[in-house]
């Protein structure tokens, strides 16, 4: 029996090379995309946590300031150290310093080697024995191999570390041999870092390892109650959750795209297998007569589906690996999302996920083969043996009201789903709404077909057109299959185009708002040098106006990524001059109350409304602030809070600008850049014109949607293949009828034209419905999925030229595909068909 199955599969592959290999490719594409996304993300996460681990170890708890400017007082460290449940406390000062010769600021970690040895062995310094015998706590810094390479420095060299107005000149005392080739950091004794860069009488954070018999959760709960409000107790799990949260929404969206590819693959298998069943109905009937059991007739079709799916999925795994490799080389480990910056990523394919994706591909092909298999099983043997494939006739609903009501109910369902909130941070209801919209589109196809062609039937038409119209109207299953593929692929493509287009337009406008100055100066995460600020304050500079901005981070929820704190020189009474607000501004009831303006994602994630007061973990304490408004932000997905520099100083904060917005005096643009150049060169500062930043931002935007564009093209192609395959199948199915027409005097050209016209009609209907669905899905993506996944909103903007152009292109391709199918029809051996031997 297996031999027979194998013979049939082999025959199928031999005789239908194009269709089977296309189906196989489609499955491969879906698997490849899903697998590539998985591989890249797993590698990026592994890299990220590896980097985290070498710097952080695996503590049971981390005590840290909620405000990135905050610190953990030594008294707190001492008190925790004395707790019998604590095995060790590892205090760390983690800061950024500038180093002459290094283009970017470097991370400097102040370590206590005694406590860190077990928790963070990778940070253990190695000393140059020939240069000195002084241990690390006698001073000196230790550099990772990457930094040594970059600085082109030798152990024993003197280096000067700078942070803001403080500096430390010391010796390069050794290296950090356990760090990887991409890890760029400096290590020094914690006391020396503290003495030179602070914080006074405190450390940056304390990592705690508990004794083995302590319940970490209970201990953390107990301690959290006693900690001062400015301090945060974090569990190691929180860190993982944060890391995973970082790219979750982005990842899910990409995976949905992969799923779309897989679904189209399943659809193509469906079309292929349906055709295969139709074409071979006589053969299957013969086998049935000869004694092939009904179950085996069912299994045979499923098996053939698997024979497409399994090699397809295997190919997909290989393709996925190659894709992942290419993407990590080209875009880095974050798929262009910009979340991780860990340098080169190593892909580690594990067997279990690979098996999972293999199964997914096989499942998709199996799902595609189920209905054809069922049809094959149901064929009446005696009839099929003589007359070939018979579509199971469907009972036509007497009144068109029933399907209309059904569609209305589905539309209501989709509307309801799009109003549901996110489920554990994911817009699952939104995705469900999209699925329902697609179902509506497919279900509407036969109904719309009958309606439109019913209208056309009244028109006086030549025979060819009339026959084409009749065929489309009378063969609902094949028309639905052919149109369904187009509807799904075009709807998804159009919706993506609409969503990305809306987003791009919104980002473009937003960039205008957030970049008011012509020139920007940026120091990466370290305070700008004091002498530059002093020089800028002098009256003889070529600048009419200079505004400073400082970035820090706040932890509002330990399981979520940090929120950006932006301290900015702006007018408390007119923040709208600098921030693109989404709604009206609220005025604080009290002059002394500090005002903050929150970004849209912050409002969405934490449910904060403008006009309310809020306690923010600022400057080591908990500070009550007033929420003055919500501004649009497309760059910080996890939320941002802006506070005026004056308010910040009033709260006791020290405002040290990282970034400057500069307005050169009229006509002095060139002079301004010349003026800045020496500082930029000396301290590795970035000077950028607004146009450059805009261009760069949009380039990054386009890069991050590169995958999306590629997928859209793939979906369209698959849809077209589906159309061609199903049209060809339709020709085979109606071979007898076409042959009769031929016998009645239709010449081959007329037959061909009828079939082509038929394909064009189906394509037009599919595209119309697909366009309608695409706009609806685009709206769901823009208004539901985006706010829920990324927490930002944007107006819907339909790029009609692109969408209609794509539709026209698809129609042209569909007509070409129909033409190819029509040529098949004209090649039918009419006499043989009529004689009944196929």
């Amino acid at each position: 029996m297996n031999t027979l199955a194998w013979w049939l599969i082999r025959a199928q592959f031999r005789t239908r090379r194009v269709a089977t290999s296309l189906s196989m490719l489609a499955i491969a594409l879906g698997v490849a995309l899903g697998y590539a996304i998985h591989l890249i993300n797993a590698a990026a996460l592994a890299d990220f946590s590896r980097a985290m681990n070498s710097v952080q170890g695996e503590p049971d708890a981390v005590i840290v300031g909620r405000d990135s400017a905050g610190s953990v007082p030594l008294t707190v460290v001492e008190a925790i150290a004395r707790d019998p449940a604590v095995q060790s406390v590892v205090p760390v000062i983690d800061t950024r310093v500038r180093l002459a010769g290094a283009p970017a600021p470097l991370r400097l970690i102040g370590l206590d080697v005694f406590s860190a040895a077990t928790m963070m062995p990778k940070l253990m310094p190695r000393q140059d024995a020939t240069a000195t015998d002084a241990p690390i706590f006698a001073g000196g810094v230790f550099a990772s191999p990457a930094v040594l390479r970059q600085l082109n420095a030798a152990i024993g060299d003197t280096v000067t570390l700078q942070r803001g107005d403080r500096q430390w000149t010391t010796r390069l005392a050794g290296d950090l041999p356990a760090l990887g080739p991409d890890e760029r950091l400096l290590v020094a004794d914690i006391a020396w870092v503290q003495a030179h860069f602070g914080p006074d009488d405190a450390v940056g954070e304390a990592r705690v390892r508990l004794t083995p018999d302590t319940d970490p959760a209970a201990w953390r709960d107990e301690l959290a109650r006693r900690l001062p409000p400015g301090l945060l107790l974090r569990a190691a799990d929180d860190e993982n959750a944060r890391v995973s949260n970082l790219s979750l929404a982005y990842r899910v969206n990409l995976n949905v795209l992969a799923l779309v590819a897989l679904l189209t693959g399943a659809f193509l298998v469906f079309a292929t297998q349906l055709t295969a069943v139709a074409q071979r109905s006589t053969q299957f009937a013969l086998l049935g007569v000869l004694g092939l059991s009904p179950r085996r007739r069912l299994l045979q079709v499923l098996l053939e589906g698997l024979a497409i799916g399994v090699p397809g999925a295997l190919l997909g795994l290989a393709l996925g690996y190659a894709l992942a490799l290419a993407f990590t080389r080209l875009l880095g480990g974050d798929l262009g999302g910009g979340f991780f910056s860990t340098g080169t990523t190593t892909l580690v394919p594990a067997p279990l996920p690979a098996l999972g994706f293999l199964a997914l591909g096989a499942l998709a092909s199996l799902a595609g083969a189920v209905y054809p298999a069922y049809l094959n099983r149901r064929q009446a043997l005696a009839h099929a043996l003589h007359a070939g494939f018979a579509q199971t006739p469907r009972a036509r609903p007497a009144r068109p009201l029933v399907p209309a009501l059904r569609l209305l109910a589905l539309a209501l369902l989709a509307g309801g789903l799009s109003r549901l909130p996110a489920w554990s941070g994911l817009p699952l209801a939104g995705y469900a709404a999209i699925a329902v919209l697609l179902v509506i589109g497919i279900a509407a196809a036969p109904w719309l077909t009958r309606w439109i062609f019913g209208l056309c039937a009244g028109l006086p038409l030549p025979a060819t057109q009339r026959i084409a119209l009749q065929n489309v109207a009378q063969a609902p299953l094949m028309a639905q299959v052919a149109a369904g593929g187009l509807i799904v692929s075009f709807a998804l493509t159009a919706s993506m185009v609409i969503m990305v287009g809306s987003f791009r337009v919104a980002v473009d406008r937003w960039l205008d708002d957030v970049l008011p100055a012509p020139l920007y100066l940026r120091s990466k995460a370290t305070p700008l040098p004091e002498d530059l600020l002093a020089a800028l304050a002098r009256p003889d500079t070529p600048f009419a106006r200079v505004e400073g901005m400082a970035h820090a981070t706040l932890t509002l929820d330990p399981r979520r990524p940090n929120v950006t704190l932006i301290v900015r020189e702006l007018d408390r009474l007119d923040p709208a001059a600098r921030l693109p607000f989404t709604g009206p501004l609220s005025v604080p009831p009290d002059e002394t109350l500090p005002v903050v303006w929150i970004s849209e994602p912050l409002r969405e994630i934490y449910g904060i409304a403008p006009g309310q007061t809020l306690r923010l973990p600022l400057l080591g304490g908990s500070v009550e602030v007033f929420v003055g408004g919500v501004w649009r932000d497309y760059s910080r997905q996890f939320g941002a809070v802006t506070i005026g520099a004056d308010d910040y100083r009033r709260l006791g904060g020290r405002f040290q600008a990282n970034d400057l917005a500069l307005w050169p005096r009229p006509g002095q643009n060139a002079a301004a850049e010349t003026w800045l150049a020496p500082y930029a060169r000396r301290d590795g500062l970035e000077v950028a014109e607004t146009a450059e930043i805009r261009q760069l931002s949009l380039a990054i935007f386009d890069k991050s949607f590169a995958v999306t564009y590629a997928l859209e093209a793939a979906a369209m192609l698959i849809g077209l293949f589906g159309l061609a395959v199903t049209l060809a199948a339709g020709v085979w199915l109606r071979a007898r009828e076409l042959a009769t027409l031929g016998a009645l005097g239709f010449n081959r050209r007329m037959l061909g034209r009828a079939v082509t016209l038929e394909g064009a009609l189906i394509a037009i209907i599919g595209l119309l419905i697909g366009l309608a669905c695409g706009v609806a899905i685009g709206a769901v993506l823009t208004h539901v999925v985006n706010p829920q996944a990324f927490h930002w909103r944007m107006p819907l903007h339909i790029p009609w030229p692109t969408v209609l152009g794509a539709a026209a292109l698809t129609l042209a391709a569909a007509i070409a595909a129909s033409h190819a199918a029509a040529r098949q029809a004209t090649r039918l051996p009419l006499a043989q068909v009529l004689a009944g031997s196929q």
Partner: protein
Amino acid sequence: MRRRDFLATPLLLPTLLAAEESVAYPPVTPGRRLRFPRDHGAHPDFRTEWWYVTGALDAPQADIGFQLTFFRRRTGFAETLRSPLAARQILFAHAALTLPGDRLRHTERVARANLGASFSSTDCDVAIGAWRLWREMRGPREILRLRMQSASFSYDFTLTPSQPPMLQGDDGYSRKGAAPELASYYVSWPRLRVDGLLLRDGRRQAVAGQAWFDHEWSTAILGDRAVGWDWLGINLTDGGALMVFRLRDAQGATLYAHAAWRDATGRRRRFDSAEIRFTPLRRWASPRSGASYPLELEIHLADLTVRTRPVIDDQELVTSRPAPVVYWEGLVKLSGGLEGRGYLELTGYADTLRL
């Protein structure tokens, strides 16, 4: 380049890094009068200091040995650094438990002062994290408290003195070699009654036994030729106490030796180098380090002859932090002219004290 240790071991501290140090450590001189409780506290100016408690328990089981030691080390570095975290003072602690029929269990901690470790300069109170050794008054009596915990064993003991402290050498000035600067201030407190709780393998048990407390601080102990020492501190069955030590050279010959015997009535007798002779009776070779320790020693103290016999042979300590050191320190029984129980320490057998 080769991997350097950040510090030498506590036992080897005195000779570490002598060349680089510009800091002036005070010398140990005779004639200084020790005052208590001040001199139970730390003397941070001196290079090294330790507080050493060893003891034997009879409950919950006979011949359990325990030990808790805090070492303080003034590194000589970062002396002028303006940071409370500057690693000027580093503390190490070792804790061990000897269970008859079992092997020695051992654990250790290390931290710098103000960052996990602390000490008092006015009274005995030294701690690393939750490990702590301190003196306090319980009513009219002074007691020592001892607390440590680890994954394999923990204890919380109260040590109640039955006799006054014993100032070693000349009123606490204890010479360690022929040169006068080779010396330490050395206070012993034998015959401390132990009670409290011992936690091991998840079982919490009340204990009873007797302990010995040593407190010693100095700047230079080991002379150039010394490779290690043998030390013995025994609570005698008759109510007396015996302390013997000698410093050895590479050939195993005695460089300097000293012994002090205080009997139950408080009468003291001292033995100098010439009166003391060590004769190994039985050696035990450690399967781990390969070192051969003379666990059964015959010690002649003028007319007295005593012999040591370990409760179990394997009481070798292999410490890893801050650097690997291997030595033997364990509970022994003393027989012969004097009988009792206490601790024997044998250093410099695995590694000659190479630096």
